[in-house]
C-alpha cells in the first residue's frame, strides 16, 4: 500500500454549495444524511483504478481535501487555510447553480489556491475581469462542478447551462453539473484529470 502514489485534490467553493456532500458521495458511495458546517478541512480518500482493464492498470489513492469557509473570510483564516494548498495535483471547484454569486466567487477561490496568495485584501475580481493567461499556463488541472441542478425551474435551465459553459471555458476546466439527489455514481469519473 505504501507504494501507491499520493494524489491530492482540493475541493473548493463557497459555504453551502455541497462540497462535503460531494466528497462523501465520491468516497463512501452514500449520500450524506446530515451535512453540517465544515470547520477547517476535512479529508476523504477514494481508491481509484487508473486505466482499468488495461495492462497499465494502477491503483491510486485520491485524497479529496474539502476546505471550508468563504472567500471573504478574515485574513487570519485565509493564512491558515493556505497551509492546505501545498503540493496540489488537481482542484475541483464547486459552485451552486441556484446562486450566481457562488460561481463568481470561484475566480477568487482559484486565485487563492493557485497563487497561495495570503495577502488579506486579496484580489477583488469582478465579472470578466480576470487574467486568462494565469489559467492557461496553469499546470494544475481544474474541474468545475455545479450542484443542485434539479432545483432550477425547467425554463431557466438552458440559461444556466450556457452561463456555466462560458465559465468553465474561462478556467480552461472540465465541467460537470449535478443533481441534489445523487443515484448514479458512474457519472463521476476522474479520467478527465491527467496525471503526471
Amino acid at each position: 500500500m505504501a507504494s501507491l502514489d499520493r494524489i491530492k485534490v482540493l475541493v473548493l467553493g463557497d459555504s453551502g454549495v455541497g462540497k462535503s456532500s460531494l466528497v462523501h458521495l465520491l468516497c463512501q458511495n452514500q449520500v450524506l444524511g446530515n451535512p453540517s458546517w465544515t470547520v477547517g478541512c476535512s479529508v476523504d480518500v477514494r481508491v481509484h483504478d487508473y486505466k482499468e482493464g488495461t495492462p497499465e492498470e494502477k491503483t491510486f489513492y485520491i485524497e479529496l481535501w474539502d476546505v471550508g469557509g468563504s472567500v471573504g473570510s478574515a485574513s487570519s483564516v485565509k493564512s491558515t487555510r493556505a497551509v492546505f494548498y501545498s503540493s496540489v495535483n488537481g482542484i475541483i471547484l464547486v459552485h451552486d447553480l441556484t446562486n450566481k454569486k457562488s460561481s463568481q466567487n470561484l475566480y477568487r477561490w482559484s486565485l487563492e489556491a493557485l497563487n497561495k496568495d495570503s495577502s488579506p485584501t486579496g484580489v477583488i475580481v469582478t465579472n470578466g475581469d480576470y487574467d486568462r493567461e494565469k489559467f492557461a499556463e496553469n499546470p494544475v488541472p481544474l474541474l468545475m462542478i455545479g450542484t443542485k441542478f434539479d432545483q432550477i425551474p425547467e425554463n431557466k435551465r438552458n440559461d444556466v447551462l450556457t452561463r456555466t459553459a462560458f465559465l468553465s471555458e474561462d478556467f480552461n476546466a472540465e465541467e460537470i453539473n449535478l443533481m441534489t439527489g445523487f443515484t448514479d455514481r458512474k457519472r463521476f469519473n476522474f479520467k478527465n484529470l491527467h496525471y503526471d
Partner: protein
Amino acid sequence: MSFLVDSVIMVTSQVLFFGFGWLFFMRQLFKDYEVRHYIVQVVFSVTFAFSCTMFELIIFEILGALSSTSRYFHWKLNLYVILLVLIFVVPFYIGYFVVSNIRLLQRQKLLFACVVWFTFMYFFWKLGDPFPILSPKHGILSIEQLISRVGVIGVTLMALLSGFGAVNCPYTYMSYFLRNVTDSDILALERRLLQTMDMIVSKKKRIAMTRRQMYQRGEDQSKQTGIWGMIRSVTSPPPNSENLSLIQQEVDALEELSRQLFLETVDLQATKERIEYSKTFQGKYFNVLGYFFSIYCVWKIFMATINIVFDRVGKTDPVTRGIEITVNYLGIQFDVKFWSQHISFILVGIIIVTSIRGLLITLTKFFYAISSSKSSNVIVLVLAQIMGMYFVSSVLLMRMSMPLEYRTIVTEVLGELQFNFYHRWFDVIFLVSALSSILFLYLAHKQAPEKHMTM
C-alpha cells in the same frame, strides 16, 4: 405653503436614507449572496429610512428648522409608519421566510405565516404585563401600548450592546491585553495540523483499502442474511469489521483534533496581525484611546450603580449641567440659550452618528458570522427588526440628554410614558451586561495561555 416645502424636504431626505439603506444592504450585508426576494431588501431599507428620519427630526427640533406644526405632524406620521413596520410587516415576513425553509409546511405558507405572526403578537402583548410602564388611564388600543413594549425590548437591546461594547472596546484597543505570539508558535501549530491531517489520511486509506478487499471477497455485511448469519456475526464478527470500527473511532478523534488545531491557528494568526497593527501609528492611537475608554467605562459602571442604589434619576441633562457649572463655579458669563442649543446639537449629533455606525458594524459582523445561504433572508429581517427597535428606544432615551425645551416634542409625540422607568431599566441591564462581559472576557483571556502551555 411652508407645510408643503417642509414636506418636500422630509420626503427628499427619506428617499436619500432609503437609498443609503439599499446600498448598504447590497454592498455590505449581501455581498456574498444573491438577492432573490427583493421584498427583503425593500423592507430593510424602509426600516432604516424611517429610523433615520426620526433622528433627523430631533436634529431639526434642536436647530429650530421647519415650522413646529409640520415637525409635529411628521413626527406622528413617522411614528405610526415605524410602528406599523416593526409590529406588522417585519414579523410577518420573518414568519413567512422561516416557514418557506421548512419542507413540510410548503403548501400553506401564508396560513402558517399568519399563525406565527399571531404567536408573536401574543408574546409581544404579554411582555408589557410585568413592567410598570403605563398609567391605567390608557385604553387598550392606544399608541402608547405599542410604543411602551417596543421601548422595553429596544432598551434591553441597547443596554446589552452598550454594556458589552463598553467593556470590549478597551479590551480590543489596548495592546496591554495582547498575548505574545511568535512566528515559531504559529509554525509549530501549523506543522501539528498538517501532521494530524496526514494521520487522518493514512487511516482513511487503510479503511478504504480494507473495505475494498472485503467487497471483493464478498464479505459484505449485507450478505449475512438469515438467522444463522445473524448469530454468526454476533459470536464471531469478521475481524476486518472490528478493525474498521476501531480505526473509524480513531479517525473521528483525529478529525476533532484537527478542527481544534485549525481554530487555534486562526486565533494565533489573528493575534499576530493585531500585534503588528499595534506597532503602527493607527495602532498606537487606538491604544491611547483604549485607555480613555476604559476610564469612561469604569465611570459609567460607577454611575449606573449609584443610580440604582440611590434610586436617583437625573433631572438635568449634561449640557445644562455643564453650562451651570462653568457659569457658577468658573464665573464665565456667556449666552446660555445660544450655547446650549449648539452644544446639545453637537452632542446629540455625535450620539446619533456613533450609535448608527456602531449598530451597522455590529449587525454586519453578526450577519457574516451566522448566516448561510438558506437562512440569510430570515437573519436580515431579524436584524432589521432589531435595528428598528434599537433606534426607536434610542430616541426615547435621548430625551435625557436634551435640555428641557427640546424634550417637550418627544414627550408630546410619544405620549405619557414612564420615562424614568426606562432609564432605570437601562441602568440595570447595562450593569448586568457590563459585569458579565468582564467576567466572560477574563475567563477567555485566562484560558487561552493555558492552551498554549499544554503544547
